[in-house]
């Protein structure tokens, strides 16, 4: 479980996040949603420690990550896996080397065991026979899947996904969503997904927080979202004609 307590952050005097608190539960798809530029990614980066918040703290299973010493921070980070918006695959390494990377650096596994684990993870995300391909030789959706394979190769307790569907066609988006959903349930990990894709929210949002202009305006599940009377959330969720039609039904 991840608990976010009163996180605030500003850049160059401009406040981006205002006193945000949330709880992300284990075995659930926790989603942070909101329009572009509302601070979702900043919040995610505060949670994983890439940005230090000015106020507040983040607890990973009751361990204070924000104020922990470097050793504890490193230990907690080694329990994390993260899928970045663009995949963040290492350009000069093959798919296999990318997925094997955390095992190479963080473990003393023999090569055969590492290869077996890599092949298992690649198979798990539906990618076979791409081990020797370079990131530049595979599609955007495949890059995301390799990113997921790399994120889960070290059997993390926490999985973070920053805009996993951005730039993907609807079918590939659904495939990625299903994959994240399945992995979360199968390995019983705490997953936090940042998204503004309403299909994803409706498909997989077990626990959702809605951010608007740096403030948490609403939290609940995908089943509660249509019933909300928060105006900003309704404007965001039912912005498209299709969503309006669905609501009216």
């Amino acid at each position, binding site marked *: 479980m991840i608990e976010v307590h009163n996180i605030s952050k500003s850049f160059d005097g401009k406040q981006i996040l205002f006193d945000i608190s949330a709880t992300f539960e284990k075995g659930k798809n926790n989603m942070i949603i909101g329009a572009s530029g509302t601070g979702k990614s900043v919040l995610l980066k505060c949670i994983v420690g890439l940005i230090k918040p000015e106020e507040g703290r983040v607890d990973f299973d009751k361990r204070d990550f924000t104020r922990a010493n470097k050793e504890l*921070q490193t230990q907690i*980070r080694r329990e*994390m896996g993260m899928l*970045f918006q663009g995949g*963040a695959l290492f350009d000069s390494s093959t798919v296999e080397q990318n997925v094997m990377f*955390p095992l*190479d*650096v*963080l473990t003393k596994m023999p090569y055969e065991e590492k290869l077996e684990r890599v092949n298992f993870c690649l198979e798990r995300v539906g990618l076979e026979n791409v081990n020797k391909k370079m990131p530049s030789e595979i599609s955007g959706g495949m890059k995301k899947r390799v990113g997921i394979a790399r994120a889960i190769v070290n059997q993390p307790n926490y999985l973070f996904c920053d805009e996993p569907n951005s730039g993907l066609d609807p079918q590939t988006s659904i495939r990625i969503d299903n994959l994240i959903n399945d992995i979360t349930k199968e390995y019983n990990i705490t997953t936090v997904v940042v998204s503004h894709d309403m299909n994803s929210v409706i498909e997989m949002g077990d626990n959702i927080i809605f951010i608007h202009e740096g403030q948490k305006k609403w939290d609940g599940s995908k089943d509660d979202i249509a019933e909300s009377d928060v105006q900003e959330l309704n404007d965001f969720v039912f912005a498209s004609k299709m969503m309006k039609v669905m609501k009216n039904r």
Partner: protein
Amino acid sequence: MKSLGKFIIFVGQLFVRRESFRTYIKLIFDECVKVGYNSVFIVAIVSAFIGAVTTVQTAYNLISPLIADPIIALVVRDMTLLELAPTITAIVYAGKVGSNLAGELGTMRITEQIDALEVMGINATSYLVLPKIIGSVIMFPLLVILAAFISIYGGYLTAMFTGVISGTDYILGIQMDFIPFQVTFALIKAVTYGFLVASISSYKGFFTVGGALEVGKSSTGAVTSSCIAILVADFLLAYLLAPLLTL
């Protein structure tokens, strides 16, 4: 001053939370190939021509019955060892390797590859930059030795083919009044420049913010800052170490 402070903190971070020694071995070897072996061609070309030009120009500037021909070779040797081999090679090295390092790290930064390392619990500064600096500090002195050899040999070939001085006088000149500390001096400069180019360029690339345009700016900034640092270090080392040549 703020940038200097940030740079010092950056260098300090190279030595904390390091990964295991075996992790660095392959990375250092790769960097040695990238920064050293891949720079041999350009260093060889530049050095050969510098040796040739220095010989011809010195010969034409020392036309006097009072100056013996071997003095020309002595001047070429001293200029090469004390200044041209380490400093000019460092400028070329900054242009080739410095821009490459800054571009590589800048691209890794904007495509979130550095963030990915940090999230895995890896000290990205140490993992990415330390092997580059060690590789540079190992390989640049070797490049300087190569540059000095090719430059002096280039001068010899030029002397032979143009006839500005005879080969025998050239050989005599490069052996005349030789001070072995000149080689040590050149190597001290080489180690310093190797460190400066790799660390400054890595710093510029590592803190790139923005997109492709900023990566280009980081590369340019890396070369400019490295060249300035080389010239300042050249002056300081000359000021501090030149008196030792006369001992």
